[in-house]
């Protein structure tokens, strides 16, 4: 049992880390989801692995499983679910705005300097300098 849980946590973490290091948003989000599965399982195991016992305190029970990690996992699941939904929406927004789903940005040095005399061609996607909003 311990071996199974431990290797499941390890495998999912490894897959998660590999995917998070990819350059496109979709694998990165999958990787984050994978990591959160791994950590949820890990949190379960922190209360020691007990099979088939209630998670409730009672004076008549000699064996029980630690309910606190289950409460922690519940909170962690809720939070990671919300965060995953948010990052999906955000990446979709970034994809629609920039036209690609790369996670890295054009380097500051490589970025074409914006010069009033040599404005970017009208066909190029609209660029704004850092922090600058389009004039209303």
């Amino acid at each position, binding site marked *: 049992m311990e071996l199974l849980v431990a290797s499941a946590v390890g495998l999912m973490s490894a897959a998660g880390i590999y995917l998070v290091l990819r350059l496109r948003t979709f694998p990165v989000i999958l990787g984050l989801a994978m990591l959160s599965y791994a950590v949820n399982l890990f949190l379960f195991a922190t209360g020691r692995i007990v099979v088939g016992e209630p998670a409730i305190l009672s004076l008549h029970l000699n064996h029980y499983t630690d309910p606190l990690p289950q409460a922690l996992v519940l909170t962690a699941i809720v939070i990671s679910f919300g965060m995953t939904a948010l990052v999906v929406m955000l990446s979709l927004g970034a994809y629609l705005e920039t036209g690609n789903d790369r996670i890295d940005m054009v380097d500051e040095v490589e970025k074409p300097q914006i010069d009033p005399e040599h404005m970017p061609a009208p066909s190029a996607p609209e660029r704004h300098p*850092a922090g600058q909003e389009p004039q209303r």
Partner: protein
Amino acid sequence: MIATLPSLALSSLTLTASAATEAVSQAAGHATTQVATAAAGAPVDPVSHWIIAPVLLPAVLAPLMVLLMRFDLLLQRVFSLAGAVALAGLAAWLMADASTGHIVDYRLGNWPAPFGIILVLDRLSALMLTLTAGLSVPVLLYAIGSNWDTRGRHFHALFQFQLMGINGAFLTGDAFNLFVFFEVLLIASYGLMIHGGGAERMKAGVQYVVFNLAGSTLFLFALGTIYSVTGTLNMADLAEKVAHLPAGDAGLIRVGAMLLILVFAVKGALVPLQFWLPNTYSHAPGPVAALFAVMTKIGAYAILRVYTLIFPPTTPATGTMFADILLPAALVTLAIGMIGIMGAKQMARMVSFAAIGSMGTLFIAIAQFTPAGNAAALYYTVHSTLAAAALFLITDLTIARRGEFGGALRAAPKITQSGLIAALFFVAAIATAGMPPLSGFLGKLLVMQATWNAPLRWWIWGAILVTSLISIVGFARAGSSLYWKANAIAPGGRLSVPEERPLLPFVATGMLLAGLVALTVFAGPVTHWMQGTATQLLDRTAYITAVLGHR
């Protein structure tokens, strides 16, 4: 999000499954007697119930703004500002109370100490609350005056949620609750960061979110490891349990504590985990970046709290390993930040690197783990938060007037109100670089004084002095190309940016700079207060007894 908190009240169990029934019944009996004494009219501090107010006030305001005022910007502005001002008053009152030196706790649901969620107010928490509230008022004024809050929706609601998360993180006395409040403040910061939209900002937002989600996962791994060893997540209880840990568990607790410091290092932008900061802060809206100036300090606060209370250098299991790791990392952070000021080609990026550099100085002071080091760190925290926020606001003022030149650090025709903005930049740059006469100089002096007896003294002094010089050169170069060279390339010419002269942004920036001046003028009483806070921080038994009661 607050709905998830009561589920934590389930932490009525800190025993691992291996415990026998006797222990359980004892614990239950102990718990009931504690509840009974509390109910039987044990003197309850009148401040006690007000501790949760800094969390509740924004938590109530924000949904009201979304539900009732979403189409009325004026109402949102009034309530947001009133909320921030009320928060500042509340924080100042709590700080006045905490100054007397006693530590007050607030138990949610009146669950006795190691079992339920607990909020704790001591001098450090009160200081950070006041700093946050004091920062939020000028930042809000700026956001309103510069119309940033009209460029997207729900700015004020997100702002209040952000305040709720930050206040909660400063108040909580429970490690898992710290994680929850980190998530609250992060999810609000994601919304604020991409406020106003735009391709570059969205892309930077994705990076920021992904980096912090990975950090949150790491946080959970760290908490899980620590819980598996100690069977508790209440900070005071952890402090007791970790101090008396059997030797066989030392390895596991070291792993947990190391993972935890990595998480806080992500928040505090400590090298090598600082990569998220420049892109995030330079692409965030100006007022949001100014508010984020306090976000890095949350990492510093968490390290200060956890590594003085739970894992102080006297702990047999961990020893001085954290100080040994923090100090070199802090030195590199300082160097990278200050060199970044020289290397940056964009104004907002330059200020972001200045923020990284100030975190380096701050962590050098924290890494001493001495009363003098902590006091210097606290003084420098207040100074660097105000200075960085002022610089971000001035950056936004400048960029808004430079039209298509944006924040590029090169000469452009003269901007509207050039003289005033240049003067503000001059003051803020002097403060950030650490030149006399402003508080940056005093802060660095305090840090250097606190490290006089450190083994790596010459490294620390050398790094602080040389990087100060580098940052002075960097700021001088940036300031002259932004404000001075205008006449050289276009004598008498002006940028054809709409001539708007709103007053409020200048009032907001002036408030932050006035804070820096006040910090300089009242440096004596302030450092005295910080020394008292540092002493209280190192008195672990006072905190533990305040939370767990007399044992």
